[in-house]
């Protein structure tokens, strides 16, 4: 069995974002990067499946981006992936979801992956398109937004998260693709011995030009802060002073505090 898990490196979302020079995405300066949270669940699920099947599956992790994405690739290897593919693309942030999906599909096409896992979306772009589009290009069934996953004899049973706490359960036969929602499992922290072992694992570098054959279907014309609605009051300063002011406001503006 061959498994592929696709991951993205994203900035810490607590950061303050400033537009880059072209004004179409954020500037990398002063940002700390990490693995997209949704993808951590995908890596964990892939590693658990490998463990369930007695270590037999070969587990490949793929990431697209500039050299810094090797950091998240190393984390995935330390979590238990066997080998990695780094699709080298310093301009990945200028690609639309269709192109990113096309790159992944071009890589996966002849590799015979039985199962592909992705996050349901990225925390920074949040388009929620790439996983499903890869499945469409490859022509394999796809279930999205998984909060439950089990595998038995070539069939994946997927629990999809719907609205208001409702879940939908579907079964699909491999080859298949699934996209992972937060809370699917508890992603492990890499242990020191596993971090050391990961250093010996292969990271194959593939220039993006070898895989990218398609033009973008949409372009970002601007990246900017939301227009301030300006209705809310922002309070800063000394804690005791803030407490007094907030209680005053609550007494005045709400009926619940007397």
């Amino acid at each position: 069995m061959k498994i592929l898990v696709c991951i993205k490196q994203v900035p810490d979302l607590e950061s303050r974002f400033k537009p880059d020079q072209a004004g179409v995405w954020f500037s990398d300066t002063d940002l700390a990067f990490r693995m997209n949270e949704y993808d951590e669940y995908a890596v964990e699920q892939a590693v658990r499946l490998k463990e369930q099947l007695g270590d037999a599956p070969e587990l490949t992790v793929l990431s697209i981006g500039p050299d810094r994405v090797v950091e998240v690739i190393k984390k995935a290897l330390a979590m238990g992936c066997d080998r990695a593919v780094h699709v080298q693309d310093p301009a990945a942030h200028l690609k639309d979801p269709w192109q990113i999906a096309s790159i992944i599909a071009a890589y996966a096409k002849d590799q015979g992956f039985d199962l592909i896992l992705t996050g349901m979306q990225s925390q920074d772009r949040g388009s929620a398109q790439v996983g499903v589009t890869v499945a469409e290009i490859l022509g394999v069934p796809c279930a999205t937004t998984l909060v439950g996953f089990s595998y038995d004899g070539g069939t994946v049973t997927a629990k999809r998260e719907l609205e208001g706490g409702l879940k939908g359960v579907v079964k699909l036969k491999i080859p298949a693709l699934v996209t992972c929602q937060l809370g699917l499992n508890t992603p492990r922290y890499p242990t020191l011995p596993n971090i050391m072992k990961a250093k010996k694992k292969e990271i194959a570098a593939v220039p993006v030009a070898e895989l990218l054959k398609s033009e973008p279907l949409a372009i970002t014309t601007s990246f900017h802060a939301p227009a301030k609605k300006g209705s809310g009051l922002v309070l800063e300063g000394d804690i005791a002073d803030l407490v007094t002011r907030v209680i005053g406001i609550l007494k005045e503006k709400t009926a619940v505090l007397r």
Partner: protein
Amino acid sequence: MKTLLIGEYREGKFLDSTYELFGFAAQLGAETSLFLVGSESTLPAGGAIYLADAASCGEYNPDLHKLLILDAVQRENPDYVVFLHSSYGWDLAPRVAAALKLAQVSEVIGVQDGVFEVGCCNGKMRRSVKPAGPKAVLTIQAGAFQGVQPTGALSVTKLSNDTASPMEFVGYEPAEAKGIDLARAEIIVSAGRGVGKKENVQIIAALAKALGGELGASRPVVDAEWVAHDHQVGTTGQTVAPKLYVACGISGAIQHLAGMKKSDFILAINKDKDAPIGEVADVLVVADLMQFVPALTAQLQK
């Protein structure tokens, strides 16, 4: 301009969130037709509808629903195929976009002259996105457009397709039984990721108690099992509108905002002045939670 709106239907019911699609189309000044895998017994009162029968097509059967939508697209030739950005929409829209080789623009919150405004960076920032061609597949953010009823006489065109599905829908699993009904609470004090660790949740719970309210939580706090699921506020938890909502260390992901932004008064406490919760808060206190919340609780208890 023509739009094909993809309506939603679940557990035998037409979902009213579908009307938001008409609200979006009204803002564009576009003609509408509705596509629905549903039932003739629960339909909007008017408008042109392409209807496939959920009893035979299944409520969740994305490969088949895609083919049915492509059939409606061929008959209607719309400029935009519009979905809600929901578990149904984000699952299905990329399949339709890929089949039509069209751009998909996700989670649209506004539109002007064919350029779409979408949220990014967890709701903190915005992008303007322009499809390469005149046509596109869109998903619109829940709650971004006011729902409106379709106008004109009801006309139903039936669609069918018997292509076998590569997936088997097993069934629904209901939401876990609710221990508490947040929807009835007058005051909710919610803990977000900013509380840092499980032990700190009690500091937020103490404020809830001092105010005579219930404890709520955002998704990351529930996923980390710091707080039980029946306290979760947001699209995948409970939708609430109390008289006072206090958001403690909640950055304000779209899914959370959609679940609480109709509250009468929103007090947010966050160390990040730019957190998107500030967009809906009546008062944003920029402070360290672990200093401010205990001080507020102590003062309220006096």
